[in-house]
């Protein structure tokens, strides 16, 4: 009698055998193959006692690509973002900005201290304005480059967007922190634009490294449909004006948060 191959038995055990009925019939009559299947079972059953190992980096990305379109668009809880190891880099850069701003304030502001509280608030806002302004500038640049991306070799059908992806990942971390800070500062208009930007960055960061022209067009359409580039430009310009207005110098009135929120 011809016995089943190991491959056939493993395929049967894993439920992917092509000729399942044939194997079932053979096992019913062949003691030796049944014993061999039991030995395979014993190894796999032993492996079941292990905790599920990490299947690899590609797996997480693939699962994200599968579930992302089905997820409701709801931002994550703000405090979760602060405790993820990935965010620590962005957290460190924000902390560094705060330290620099603090030291700059100490060095440059030796004058009268009558309105310290108001000045502190102004400094905090200035830091946010400068940092978010730069962040929006970098985001705009990345989105423009992505919109204009083309295959490096015209004979190639796929476009490599891995560089834009890496930048989107970095921007995503910063974006979350700035959005939370804007919310805490009561700047809901800015927080709302950052929220929209976050979704676009999330899409880019979790796209495949190489996309077909059709997939790239889909990403472009998404960016255009949300008008995110326009919004980023408008808010970026507004922040630049705010930066000029909040920089110590001749008194000048600037659009306040509440005015912006109203708008």
């Amino acid at each position, binding site marked *: *009698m*011809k*016995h*089943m*191959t*190991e*491959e*056939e*038995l*493993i*395929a049967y*055990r*894993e439920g*992917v055998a092509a000729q399942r009925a044939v194997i079932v019939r053979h096992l019913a009559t062949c003691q*030796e193959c049944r*014993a*061999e299947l*039991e*030995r*395979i079972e*014993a*190894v*796999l059953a*032993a*492996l079941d*006692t*292990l905790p*599920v*190992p*990490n*299947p*690899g980096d*590609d*797996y997480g990305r*693939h699962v994200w690509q599968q579930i992302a379109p089905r997820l409701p668009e709801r931002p994550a809880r703000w405090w979760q973002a602060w405790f993820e190891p990935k965010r620590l880099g962005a957290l460190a850069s924000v902390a560094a900005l705060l330290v620099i701003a603090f030291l700059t304030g100490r060095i440059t502001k030796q004058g009268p201290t009558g309105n310290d509280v108001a000045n502190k608030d102004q400094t905090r806002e200035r830091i946010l304005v400068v940092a978010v302004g730069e962040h929006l500038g970098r985001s705009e640049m990345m989105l423009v480059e992505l919109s204009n991306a083309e295959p490096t070799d015209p004979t190639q059908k796929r476009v490599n967007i891995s560089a834009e992806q890496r930048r989107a990942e970095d921007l995503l971390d910063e974006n979350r922190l700035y959005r939370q800070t804007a919310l805490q500062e009561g700047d809901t208009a800015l927080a709302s634009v950052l929220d929209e930007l976050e979704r676009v960055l999330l899409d880019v960061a979790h796209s495949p490294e190489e996309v077909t022209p059709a997939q790239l067009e889909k990403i472009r359409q998404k960016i255009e449909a949300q008008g995110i580039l326009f919004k980023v430009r408008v808010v970026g310009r507004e922040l630049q004006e705010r930066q000029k207005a909040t920089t110590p110098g001749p008194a000048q009135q600037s659009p306040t948060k509440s005015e912006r929120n109203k708008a």
Partner: protein
Amino acid sequence: MTLVHDAAPTPERLAHNIELRKQMEIALAALSHSERTAFVMRHWEGCAIEEIAEVLKSSSGAAKNTVFRAVQKLRLALQPFVGRGTQVRVMGTES
């Protein structure tokens, strides 16, 4: 007098289990990246071969082969520690 069944594992059994666990971790670590991905997805996650093929960027046939190679390697490494019938038969032969 009543006999009470002692369900606690013997020290030998415990030592064997620890050794088996160590060997399983070594065997899993020894798999190639794609073999480990395929095996974990199929065996632990219950993913379809097509899903594995998509992650591995390969055909379904190749993904199936990768699962098979992973099980074969794990079996070769772990069979001596799993107990009964430690000899792996040369399969597909006639008797």
